[in-house]
């Protein structure tokens, strides 16, 4: 019995040592974490890498996707025949609804002044499919671009869109700069 008691107390002693070591290691780690104060990250799309494949609409764990099309009006051409809004017009300049590219009719077209039209995105309807972005990039200035709307994003530790993106356009960005604006446009 005495032998067993000795065994037990030795085990207890070792456990105590392990606990103390663990606690010290944890406090050191916590200390370095708090002193470095590294910012949390969020996921965002680099619009210059985006190839508008359409996966943002389907890969997001949320339905509808947290990815929305944003419109940088500052680089918009205000085209009458906006190719973000309209599809291929073989016979000319139909601007009727059946030619709309957006599957959810989320792009609003408003007359500004001759010959300029303003496009705005109804983000409640936008599903982030990038069809309009593709059209605008191919023909126009690329003023339409996809971004992860940070107020909608679930902030998954592993973004499902980042895994699905074929070009690695979804990246971690610091939470204080959660958007990637297109400051420059393609020719």
């Amino acid at each position, binding site marked *: 019995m005495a032998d067993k008691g000795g065994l037990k107390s030795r085990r207890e002693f070792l*456990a*105590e040592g*392990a*606990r103390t070591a*663990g606690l010290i290691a*944890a406090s050191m780690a*916590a200390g370095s*974490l708090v002193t*470095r*104060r*590294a*910012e*949390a*990250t*969020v996921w965002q799309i680099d619009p*210059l890498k985006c*190839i508008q*494949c359409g996966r943002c609409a389907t890969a997001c*764990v*949320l*339905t509808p996707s947290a990815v929305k099309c*944003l*419109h940088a*009006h*500052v*680089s*918009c*051409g*205000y085209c009458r025949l906006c190719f973000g809004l309209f599809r291929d017009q073989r016979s000319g300049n139909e601007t009727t609804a059946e030619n709309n590219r957006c599957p959810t009719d989320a792009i609003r077209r408003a007359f*500004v*002044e001759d010959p*300029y039209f*303003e496009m*705005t995105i109804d983000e409640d309807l936008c599903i982030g499919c990038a069809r309009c972005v593709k059209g605008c990039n191919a023909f126009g*200035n690329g003023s339409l671009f996809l*971004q992860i*709307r*940070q*107020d909608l*994003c*679930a*902030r*998954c*530790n*592993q973004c*499902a869109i980042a*895994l699905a993106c*074929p*070009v*690695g*356009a979804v990246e*971690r960005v610091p*939470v204080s700069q*959660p958007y990637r*604006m297109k*400051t*420059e*446009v*393609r*020719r």
Partner: protein
Amino acid sequence: MRRYSEAIWILVGMFPVVPAWAQEQQRQPPPEFRSGYALPPLNAPMPRAEVFTVVDLLVLLAVLSLTAWFLLGARSRAGVRVLAVFSLLYFGFYRLGCVCSIGAVQNVALALVEPGYVLPWSVGLFFLLPLVFALFFGRVFCAAACPLGALQDLVLIRSRRLPAFLEQGLSLIPYLYLGAGLLMAATGTSFLFCQYDPFVGFFRFGGPATVMAFGAALLLLSTVVGRPFCRFLCPYGVLLRACSGVARWRVRIAPSACVQCHLCADACPFGAIRPVTPNADLEPRPVGRRRLAVLILLLPLLVIGFSALGHLASPALARQNRVIALAERVWLEEQGQLWQTTEASEGFWNSGRPPAELYREALAVRRRFGIGATLLGGWFGLVVGGRLILLAMRRRRTEYEADPGACLSCARCYAACPVRGEVSISLPHRVTGETGVTWSR
């Protein structure tokens, strides 16, 4: 041939074949509107304020402390259940399952290896807090703070004990899963634990179909098998188990009070209470000793063998990485061995990045895979060999013992113990001695 050599890559780097194309160009200014039209602002709302991260941390701290108190002081299974429901609602359905200590393991691994990634302090604390609590109070995180555990615990109707070989075999998977997840995280490939989290889809009401189906099957299984994810998959559980092994305050069965009725072992859905070893099963000593000696000699061989296997498997594993897969594709296209581009390679060619730069990046990742996969193999060998040695070791138990590593602190055994006297377990004051199962040293 899907092989490429470093020397050729360096040569390629000296003579860029494909011209880079800068996509950016001076912006065309917007039209000068005569009607006084003003450009609308860009709608880009900010994410949830950082102060809420502190709230998350405080909630975690509170849940962990309260759970410890419910178990240690109040001895209340009901209290633990209420906390578990709260965690399920808060961390699960409200926070959508993300911020999570299980996933944080991967952030820690990535931050340790990748200099470009700095561990956010909040994630680091989510990783550390449950471990520190486990050092002192056992796995209180599993008891009530983890929404995944809470979900499985709440649907458990009647637990059935698994056959011993199944239990032993399955309980190795978390170690292997942990190793694989650390490798994938440290190489920046993907966060496996998050990608294949079976229950997070329930919190978000949607997810990949295969993972959702897996989660549903696991949840169904949880009705008859106690917490299958926690016991047979959870990689964070490996760390918690290690910490909980030295916990200061935890479930112990007082030998003086125990009547060896086996009711607590029956009540434990997780097989954490080890009963007295029956004499009949014991083999003659020399046989056991010989086996042990052989297994101990086998351990280094297993470690070396699995390391070699891991090293051999590293190129195949590395292909899971986006950078490596892209570099191989681009290389073959550049060599004219493949004519068609994929979306990924086309995106790369359009980016104007020189291929040599991609190859350099890929080589760095592959070097990391080479080391990581070897270590992973060694870890596999160590886990398997170590488990075999543990199985061969003969330990006689003359008393009922609660395995601190396996105990998930659910408090079910308190109610099952018949040695209660007049003291009700629901009373919120500390009880020692009167019951067989107690939370003291």
